[in-house]
């Protein structure tokens, strides 16, 4: 009987955890959390990143098109101005040639 009690006491005796117990626990918890992370979060993060990328590309393209259009308009404006100024000059010089 005493032997049995000793065995029981030994079995139920408080034991100190190993030195790396805390680290192992945290690592397992992280792995568990990673494995059970909801997929929709990944999808949303991916979608947001893709949207930002597409938005930036679109804005750059739009800006480039605006620049190109402004340049075309400027050249046309200068060409019309130049033509008209030269026509007027010819008219002014015409009778005195």
């Amino acid at each position, binding site marked *: 009987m005493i032997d049995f009690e000793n065995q029981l006491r030994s079995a139920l005796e408080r034991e100190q955890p190993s030195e790396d117990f805390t680290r192992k626990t945290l690592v397992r918890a992280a792995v568990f959390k990673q494995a059970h992370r909801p997929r929709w979060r990944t999808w949303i993060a991916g979608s947001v990143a893709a949207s930002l990328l597409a938005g930036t590309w679109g804005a750059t393209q739009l800006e480039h098109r*605006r*620049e*190109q259009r*402004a*340049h075309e*308009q*400027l050249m*046309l*404006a*200068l060409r*019309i*101005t*130049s*033509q*008209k*100024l*030269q*026509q*007027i*000059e010819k*008219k*002014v*010089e015409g009778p005195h040639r």
Partner: protein
Amino acid sequence: MKYLALLLCIPCAWTQVLKLDHLDRLGSKAENSVNITLDSGLLNLAARFIPEDDADAAQVKKLVSALKGISVRSFEFKNAGDYTGADVDEIRVQLRDPAWKSVVEVHSKTEGDSNIWLKTLSGRIIGLALIAAEPKKLTIVSIDGAIDPEDLGKMGGYFGIPKSIRYKSGKDEDKK
């Protein structure tokens, strides 16, 4: 009081831009039309595309960088009389402002009227307006901003500014 009025007039002269909006209605009557309005922001954008390796282009870039706006309205009509004198008069009224000086006036019974005005401030050209009113064509150009006559002179090959306009600047008048 006189100085106060003068001080008030200086910013007015700088900010006065010709209003050409009333001409937009002619676009539907015209066979071909050009409607360009570029403010300083768009001019800066446009100037980025002008190459700097060419001397003439570099001059254009310099000229454009000093401008605050360019407006062009050009119409080609099928028939004479598709636009009226009243359409042009609305612009001429704006050009009665003392800041504007008529430098070229050409009248032709067959080819219509052509006029060029320069806006000057303290001997500097700060604007150019052009009206070419032919029987079937109407072109209005309004350039707002500092235009150096020296630059205009160098622009001959690229921009085609005639000499007759260069020598009408305030600077030249001052020299006389």
